[in-house]
């Protein structure tokens, strides 16, 4: 009986697997290229992005492939170095979100009655809050630094992962092996860390990657509004300066606005695709 069911499942997974695998590979390649760009920025960038290396407002040419900005910094180099900031903030913020989300999700799922109800109302509040205004207020209040940006984003996007993980924990806690561990006399701490948390790891991976995609977008929005770290430029802050210097209205948008926009999209889409294909693999096993 079981062998039949397994065969049916396997067949279905294979069929559905193909598209999601292709998309997943696209995502991995995109993200991989961006990561290489971030890691090897000093070697790849033709100039130091903080130095004035040419005349201001130069259009693309042989010396500056994407031209220069209003103070004569090389835009291509800014873009390459900007990937470091964008990716680091995105990944760090997602990690912070996952940490909070897992803690809340596991507690709420394992103690679903009082503590769980209380925590999930908190989750609801965070989900309901209007994102961007709050983000702006918090970022403005805390000051403009890389760490603050990361923390603010992390503090706002943990609610989604918390919900996903809670639902998994709710099902895990009623599994018989958790009951068995309790029957051995294991304290809750033991069952949570030995039997529940490790089993949420797969699911957490999926929501982590998805959270990175979201965090990169949020970081870009914050920086575009001028709330990013003024010293370390990300793709979003490149856009902020382009906007401030009127590049959106001049022909300069082609080399000043479009490239960072495409990069933001590529990074966020890359992570989203990986998340999609991961979830496709993980979810059927729930």
């Amino acid at each position: 009986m079981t062998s039949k069911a397994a065969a049916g499942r396997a067949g279905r997974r294979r069929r559905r697997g193909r598209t999601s695998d292709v998309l997943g590979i696209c995502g991995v390649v995109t993200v991989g290229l961006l990561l290489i760009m971030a890691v090897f920025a000093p070697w790849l960038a033709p100039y130091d992005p903080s130095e004035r290396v040419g005349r201001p407002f130069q259009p693309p040419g042989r010396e500056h492939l994407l031209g220069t900005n209003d103070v004569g910094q090389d835009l291509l180099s800014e873009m390459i170095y900007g990937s470091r900031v964008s990716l680091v903030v995105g990944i760090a913020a997602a990690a912070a979100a996952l940490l909070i989300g897992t803690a809340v999700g596991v507690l709420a799922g394992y103690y679903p009655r009082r503590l769980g109800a209380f925590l999930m109302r908190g989750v609801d509040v965070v989900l309901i809050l209007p994102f961007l205004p709050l983000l702006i207020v918090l970022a403005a209040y805390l000051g403009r630094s890389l760490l603050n940006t990361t923390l603010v984003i992390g503090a706002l996007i943990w609610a989604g992962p918390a919900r996903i993980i809670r639902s998994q924990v709710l099902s895990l806690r009623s599994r018989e092996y958790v009951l068995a561990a309790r029957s051995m006399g294991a304290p809750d701490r033991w069952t949570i860390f030995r039997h529940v948390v490790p089993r949420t790891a797969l699911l957490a991976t999926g929501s982590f990657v998805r959270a990175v995609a979201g965090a990169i977008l949020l970081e870009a929005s914050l920086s575009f509004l001028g709330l990013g770290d003024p010293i370390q430029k990300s793709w979003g802050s490149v856009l902020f300066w382009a906007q401030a210097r009127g590049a959106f209205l001049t022909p300069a948008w082609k080399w000043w606005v479009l490239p960072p926009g495409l990069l933001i999209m590529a990074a966020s889409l890359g992570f989203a695709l990986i998340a999609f294909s991961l979830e496709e693999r993980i979810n059927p096993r729930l």
Partner: protein
Amino acid sequence: MTDVSVDHGKAVPLLEIEDLRVRFELPTEVVHAVGGISLEVAPSEIFALVGESGSGKSVSMLSVMGLLPSPPAAVSGSIRFEGREVSGMSGRELNRLRGREAAMVFQEPMSSLNPVHRIGRQIGESLRIHRGVTRSEARRRAVYLLDRVGIPAAASRVDDYPHEFSGGMRQRAMIAMALACDPKLLIADEPTTALDVTVQAQIIDLVRELQAEYRLAVVWITHDLGVVAEIADRVAVMYAGRILETGPASEIYGATRHPYTSGLLRSIPRLDRQVTSRLAEIPGAPLKVSQELRGCPFHQRCPLGQDDCGDALPELEAAGAPAHRSACVHRDQMGPSIELWPAGAAGEPRTYGDGRREVVVSVRRLEVHFPAVRGSARSRRRVVRAVDGVDLEIERGRTLGLVGESGCGKTTLGRALAALVRPVSGSIQITGRPIDYRSGRRRVVQMIFQDPFSAMNPGMRVGDIIGEPLRIHRLASKPRIQERVLDLLEQVGLPPGAHGRYPHEFSGGQRQRIAVARALAADPEVVVCDEPVSSLDVSVQAQVVNLLADLQAGNGMALLFIAHDLAVVRHISHEVAVMYLGEIVERAGRDRLYGSPLHPYTKALLEAVPAPSPAVGPDRNRIRLTGDLPSPADPPPGCRFHTRCPVAVEGLCSIRKPELEEVRPGHWVSCHLVSR
């Protein structure tokens, strides 16, 4: 219509299967589920297909109905229904066959019924499909059928949803559905396995009755030899996708000519035999066939097995009586005088120590309630009294068997002992000390679950699983844990190599051994065994029962053995308690309780157990319990059993609640009609 003459049933078989083979081609492996079987079913006979899980019994019948998914199933061979070849039929012809001429009943009635459609509509469905009758006609017929299968007040229940029916009623409804178009063949796939013994007995009676009335042929698929003896005319015993023996039921039970059948018959504990100190056991685990069989599939577990048994595949050949055939080259060596499967001597189960008695577990007026969440606001405050005032004691080195139908609270009682649920009142003391729920002095009670696989974290290695209690209670240092685990593996009869492997690599019986080892690791005073053998194959159950008894004789643990199988409980227990709706209705020493039960419920339970011997089977004049267990959220007033009791006295049993009283030394009964 074909001219079917019943007297010469052999001449025109209803169902004829020849050299049926089914292979599953899975991505990871190939499973030969059925390896060339041939059989015939005559009109209006009851034919039983017996085998353990994975023996191919269900798969072969699913292929008769054309219900196997293909791929991955590859079916070959010939299946003829009234002379028409089934395997070559088009989808439309198959649909006509299914439901109209051959119908099927499955094990789990709740999952076979659509939960969002009314029962009556589901029964009428096949009539509307096959007969094209009108809606009102279908409904009328559904009421008739429900009434026929014994649903009380059928006309008012016809519009119920499946969840409003009890388990036994759902199975009756499934049978009504199967009978809707007057089929000639009914295939019943483990139809009573999910039911309680008392309900099982009702269903068996019903099928036998309907079979006679409708002149149905029935193929009854089961693993339970007791049920087969009750119902079957002819039997085929399957193992590893082959039929090992086939013949009239009386022959199979009385003069089997195959060592496997005889092993099965010897290893199941029975109520009609003396208790032996050990059950006969078949060594090893059922075979999973991943390539074409070359020799006898059973030879490695067989006491008659010789080297040449593995060289040629034995075919079914005549053995003894007419129509009795066995696929064993040594079939002529078998006879009533030869005991292939030695069991221990008759008598008391072995006991631990010097016979001094020491109470280990003492439960006083224990009550466990759960909030009943269903229903309106009015009923929200109601509670389910799962355990309602239970007293019991277990002594060192002894076993208390706890029996009762599902829903009687026996599992909750066991869980309360293991501190998994908190009682609302009453006390549990283990070696004189109460359970401390907060700090958890819980090493002293360990538990063994019904399904060993789901009770183990699938991502952990066996060594870590067994060592877990040691780590939880910090009972040993790291290197000592490893040593202790190897020691435990040896105690439960597993190779030391099991240590580094994962639970999914083991068979069901081996997994239960791992669970036993884990329960023993913390050196508990009491082990609560919740249905420890009921998910295991028949041939493996005896191994686990013997293992538990052996271990107990060695270390003196007390056992609370919870089971619905009265024969198994009788085998392992020193004392037995019978539970009904949260209360213990009778408690006595084993031989007293099985020999001279006093409570009518105990009597009815014992009567309902099918005996694996056709001679005793159908002719017994027994008490049948009617109906199902009432809801524990709303127990009947007075004696809780009076609604189903055959001897209840109106005006007494329905009003006054009987107390559990000691009517003889060591024999406690709670019934007004039992005099001291």
